Structure formats: structure tokens, C-alpha cells
């Protein structure tokens, strides 16, 4: 188990060595980069908006129900909602969700390319297949993920605002005052830094599992599942480390 984990890590590092090289053709790389930003990033916007909106609303309801002490000011609901969104949800939880969408997409796409010999075709042409296929995905996703993170923060807060606006649980004034109170700008950067690291984990781990698939359609599915599970665990591990490093 330990030996195979070390061997996998070694192979993962060698794979990254193969990926992070200068692209053969800058123009083709740029075209692929734009395509990947659109496919992995822009196409994730609806998912991010829907989930953030509802989770923001749910957090606000939960906070309103649970913070009932007269000693706690009424604007605490907004403040707590904001802190949860900024510190954990829009970075860690959102990336766990994206690991499912983007990670499985990358692993299954590259895995299918492997089993249908498209990767062999690139290798035979003399193209560094890992660099050609994977690098635009990693850079594209890492570049766009801060946009998704900030969008998630904003939409989550809007979700809370809807609760304040359309229910009698709390007032809009209290909520807006809460989300503006004791604002620490670093928390936004903290969320963005975390999402960049998580995006790197998602894209590289998924690409690694997809690239080394052997077999057929069944193995592609298994690789996709393994990619999501592994990247989720690594995200949680990285979350602990980054929180310790960035917030202490």
C-alpha cells in the first residue's frame, strides 16, 4: 500500500514534468487554452451560481434559526453567513463540487483519448501528448477558478439577501449591515489562494488518472471515479494545511 502510493506519487511527479514544458506551437496552445477556459470554467458558471445561491440562502436560514440569544446582535446572521461563504464554502466546498464536475470531465475525456488511441496518435506524430492535452486544461482552470470563487461568494450573499427580502426571518437592513461588518479583505484573498491550489489539484490529479488508463470504457469510468475521490481527499488535506498557513 505504502510502496504503491509512493510509486504513484513518483509517477505523478514525472507526469507533471512531462506536462510542464514549453508548448510546441504557441498559437495552437493559446487556441486550446481559450477552448478549455470556456469548457471547464465558463461552463461551470451556472452550476456555481445555482449551488451558491441556494447554499447562501440555507446558511442564512440556519443562522437565523440558531442564533436566537438576546446577547448576540441581530446583524450576526449576515456576518456569519459572509464568513462561512468567504472562508470555506466558496473555496473548499465549491472546489469539492467542481472536483466532481471538472475532475470527472478531464479524467474521462483524457481516458477516452487513451483507449481510442488518440494519445498514441499524438505520440507517433512526435507531439508531447501530456503537454499538448493537459497543460491548457490546468492553466485554463487555474486561471478561471478565482472568477468562480468570487462569483460564488457574491451569489451566496445574494442568496442570503433573498431570505431577508422575501421572508420575515430577518430584516434586509440587519443582513446588509451584517455582511458589511468587520470585513477582512484578506479572507477574500485567502479563498482565492485556496481555490487556485485546489484547481491545480483537481486538474492534475484527474489528468493523471485519465492519462494512464489501460483497458476500455469500464476502466475509463473507474479512472474517473478514482480521480474524483483522490482529488477530494487531497483538497481536504490541502485545506487543513492552507488554513493553518494562511490564517494563523
Amino acid at each position, binding site marked *: 500500500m505504502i510502496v504503491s502510493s509512493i510509486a504513484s506519487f513518483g509517477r505523478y511527479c514525472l507526469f507533471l514534468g512531462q506536462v510542464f514544458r514549453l508548448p510546441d*506551437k504557441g498559437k*495552437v496552445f493559446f487556441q486550446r487554452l481559450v477552448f478549455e477556459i470556456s469548457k471547464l470554467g465558463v461552463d461551470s458558471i451556472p452550476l456555481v451560481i445555482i449551488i451558491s445561491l441556494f447554499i447562501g440562502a440555507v446558511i442564512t436560514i440556519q443562522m437565523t434559526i440558531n442564533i436566537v440569544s438576546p446577547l448576540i446582535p441581530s446583524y450576526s446572521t449576515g456576518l456569519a453567513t459572509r464568513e462561512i461563504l468567504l472562508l470555506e464554502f466558496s473555496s473548499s466546498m465549491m472546489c469539492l463540487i467542481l472536483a466532481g464536475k471538472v475532475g470527472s470531465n478531464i479524467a474521462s475525456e483524457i481516458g477516452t483519448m487513451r483507449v*481510442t*488511441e488518440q494519445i*498514441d*496518435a499524438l505520440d*507517433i*506524430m*512526435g507531439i508531447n501528448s501530456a503537454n499538448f492535452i493537459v497543460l491548457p486544461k490546468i492553466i485554463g482552470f487555474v486561471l478561471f477558478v478565482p472568477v468562480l470563487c468570487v462569483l460564488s461568494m457574491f451569489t451566496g450573499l445574494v442568496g442570503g439577501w433573498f431570505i431577508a427580502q422575501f421572508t420575515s426571518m430577518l430584516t434586509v437592513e440587519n443582513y446588509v449591515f451584517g455582511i458589511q461588518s468587520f470585513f477582512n479583505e484578506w479572507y477574500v484573498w485567502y479563498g482565492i489562494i485556496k481555490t487556485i491550489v485546489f484547481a491545480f489539484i483537481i486538474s492534475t490529479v484527474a489528468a493523471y488518472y485519465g492519462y494512464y488508463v489501460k483497458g476500455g470504457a469500464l476502466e475509463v469510468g473507474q479512472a474517473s471515479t478514482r480521480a474524483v475521490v483522490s482529488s477530494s481527499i487531497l483538497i481536504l488535506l490541502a485545506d487543513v494545511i492552507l488554513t493553518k498557513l494562511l490564517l494563523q
Partner: protein
Amino acid sequence: MIEAKNVSKWFDGQRVLYDISATFETGKTNLIIGQSGSGKTVFMKCLIGLLTPEEGIILYDGRKFRSMNTEEKRKLRTEIGMLFQGSALFDNETVLGNVMFPLKMFSKMSREEQLERAHFCIKRVGLTNADEKYPSEISGGMQKRVAIARAIALNPKYLFCDEPNSGLDPRTSILIDELLSDITHEYGITTIINTHDMNSVLGIGEHIVFINKGHCDWTGSDRNIFRSTNKDLNDFVFASKLFKEVKLFLEREYEAQKD
């Protein structure tokens, strides 16, 4: 010309190729034949460089593949065209995009020149009105044609085909065989075709290498394959009912001539 000298290959301690030596001549359709699991695909992958043989050498026009540096290997790769069993077309590219791909990556042509060359190759393989279609929108036979067009786009010196007829009906198989043969003679390419289709063997087998259980058991041409005394080759060649009938017919003719 491509030469393989004493090529041996192991997988997890199990030997799959035993000292195979063979020569594949320029301007000819060279066929590697053998039963499924005989090691012909492994041998072909060793020839292309997708697998590294533990023993033996591969020579491309006298150039030792293993001794080449990265740049030399990269240059050699641009001289190789490959037709895969499943076509291996890029799913997210159109027919035109697939054929233009090697030109975009390796040639210094302008976009207009690339388009002109791609259209020429597409026309050469007999495809019409398919430029903007995606691989999933065209038939298996058309996919093979696109793959051939992509393989010849850069004017390769060497063309490798892994079971080009698999999954195709007999008529389309013959058309693909004829196309490969025509291209080989027209451009003077060293073509190596991996197949177990006897129609291909008889149709375009100018030079044949028979691989059996990892050994090179026989070499010859389509003209003398029926006269071989190699038992394993005969078992392979006359496995189908049709070819058994052919064998009986030939034997009867031979007996009649003797009388």
C-alpha cells in the same frame, strides 16, 4: 527501408517476441500477418517506437532508432504516418481539422497552403462533402479514409497501418486496401500493414512476414504463400472455408497437370 534485427520483447517476465528479424522494403506494401495474440501488434509498436524492445535493433534507412537523440526522433516522427485500428481521429476536430492537424503542428505553410494540402489529401482518399463533419457523424469506412488522409498529409516516408480493415465490410475493405497500395506506389512510401485479413494478403501482399507465437516463421509474397510448407502458416491461411476450397481447387489443378 525499415529493418528489424533480432527484436525481442518481454512483458512482466513473459517473452512475447523471440529474435524477430525482418526487412520492410521501400515502395512496397509490407504485411505483418498472424493470428490474434501472435505478437504482431507488439512487433509493430516496437517498430514505431511506442514500445522499446529489450533486445535487438530497429533501423530506419540505416538509422538506428535507439541511438537517435530526442530531436532526431522528433524529426523521424514527422516522417511517419500511422493508421490506427480504430482510426484514432480527434473527436473534437472536424474531418478538415483532423487532416490539417499535422500541418498546423509541423509545417511552415500558411493557412491557405494548409487548407489546400488538406483538401488535396481529402480528395485523394475519395472523400467529398465531409469537411465540416465530426468523426462521430461519419461511417467507419469514411473514418479510415480520413485517418489515411491525416497520415499522408505531411508526405510521410513510412506508413504504418494497424488492422486497417477491422470492422469494415468486404467491399470497403478492398477499397481501403487499394487506396493504401496506390498511395504506397504513388509516393514511394515504406508501408507496413498489420492484418489477419486474407483478402488483404492476396490483394496487396507484396512482402509478407508471418508472426507465429512471437516468432517470425515465414517471409514471402502473395504469390508463394499458397505453396508454403509451413504448417502453422497453412493453418492460418486455410482457416476459412473459402480458402480450403481454393486449396482443394489448386490441388486438383496440380494433379490434373501432373496427369
